[in-house]
């Protein structure tokens, strides 16, 4: 399911807290405001519990998939558009 999506990728591998979350927020708020879907790649496990609440605050839904050992993709998607589809 990881590679089906064509959505833009934000690669924050190598970054530790709070930067994965701050950079995701900046992407959602400033760089690509209103983006329907964003994939965030991280190798920092704590980010898996900091990024989703911030995305959900902004009305997005979240899914997490493992890309490799110690590496994950957080799929952030517009919850309404996804529910309709």
């Amino acid at each position, binding site marked *: 399911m990881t590679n089906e999506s064509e959505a833009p990728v934000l690669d924050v591998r*190598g*970054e*530790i807290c709070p930067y994965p979350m701050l*950079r995701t927020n900046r992407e959602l708020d400033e760089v690509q405001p209103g983006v329907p879907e964003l994939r965030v790649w991280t190798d920092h496990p*704590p980010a*898996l519990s900091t990024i989703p609440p911030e995305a959900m605050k902004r009305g997005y839904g979240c899914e997490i998939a*493992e890309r490799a050992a*110690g590496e*994950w993709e957080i799929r952030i998607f517009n919850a309404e558009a996804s529910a309709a589809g």
Partner: protein
Amino acid sequence: MSMDTVRTIDRSTGVGILAVVGLVAVYLIALRTDAAWPVFWISGVAFGVICQRSRFCFVAGFRDLFLMKQGRMMRGIIAGLAVGTAGFAMIMATVIPNPGSGVLPNDAHILPLGIATVLGGLMFGFGMVLSGGCVSGSLYRMGEGYLGSWVAIFGVLVGLYAMARTWNWWWENQISMDRLSWLPTDLNYTGAVVITLVLLAVAYAGVSWWERRAFAGMSFTLPVIPGSAAPPAAPGADTTLGALARKVFRAEWTPLVGGIALAAINILIFIRYRPLGVVGEMTRWSTDFANQIGAGVGELQGINDIPGCVPRFVEGTWFTDAFMLNAGIIAGAFTAALLAREFRLRIPRGPRRYVQSLGGGLIMGYGAGLGLGCTIGAFFSAIPSLALNGWIYAIALAIGAYGGTAFIRRFP
């Protein structure tokens, strides 16, 4: 569906099992060498495993309150402090049945309380947010493969060395004159425990209120983490033991579980020896290394008269029980990360992050030396010691962390 559904032992788990064999081998060697070593080794390993599995992080506890108004980690820390308080009180009451006598329990972290406590806490709080991990946090992340944590710990060692060079000045002008304030002296055990638990309950409620205010009207459940949670096993292919092992070693533990488990380790090691602390030993490493290269700091005045995180030099051997604790933290986290398939060499992005780790480590190291401990020794072991210095250090940590958060907000 991923290929994980049908699972054989993968490489990470395989190396993890080898690492477990290594942990046991060191334990057996320790057992034949010294009475304290195996205890400190097991405690260190357990510390590393607990932190790795629960992502326990004192930095997140403070920083996320300010940055995201999230209190999940801080509530885990507070729960650990409450459990620790109950356990420590029982131990101390056995050693000193009459706390009003003026005699203090030797090994409890009742530390000189003064300017050094406040300044140490402020520096430590600022430095830990800057580097992204406190001292114990950076130690266990070394084991998880974070290169930045290795840099941070190098900074801490240099900071502790700088502190040791200035220690005698601080000792003569400040710390030797500071008083030890132990709550049971005036309040007896019951009063001290009650007031500590009430303050912790107030802090817990305050954190929850702060969080609810920020997340008003919002409720959501966090998505499951597939790499960390147990994968759906093929029917019949799973033994109960295997399922249990996956539940413990693959699934993420909550910070609440982490905090309480850490407190349990702290109580167990204090029953026979002393509360947890990591920086005293690291001061010994850095000053001893400096001695070797002819940049020794000479005699550190007064360190034999105070408890807590000061270097303890042992004649005749370089290895000590405290060394086993610190090494165990790294080894435990390394093993737990492998078994959870989370170990990975994590290389910071760009030179700025290295500067942050090093600079944060330096500030944190100096602060830990000055405040006679880190988030473990001067906070997580001090508040349960019913010592006033734990609370003052905690407040200073929070203010320092607030400053650190404001700083990193400005320099992303």
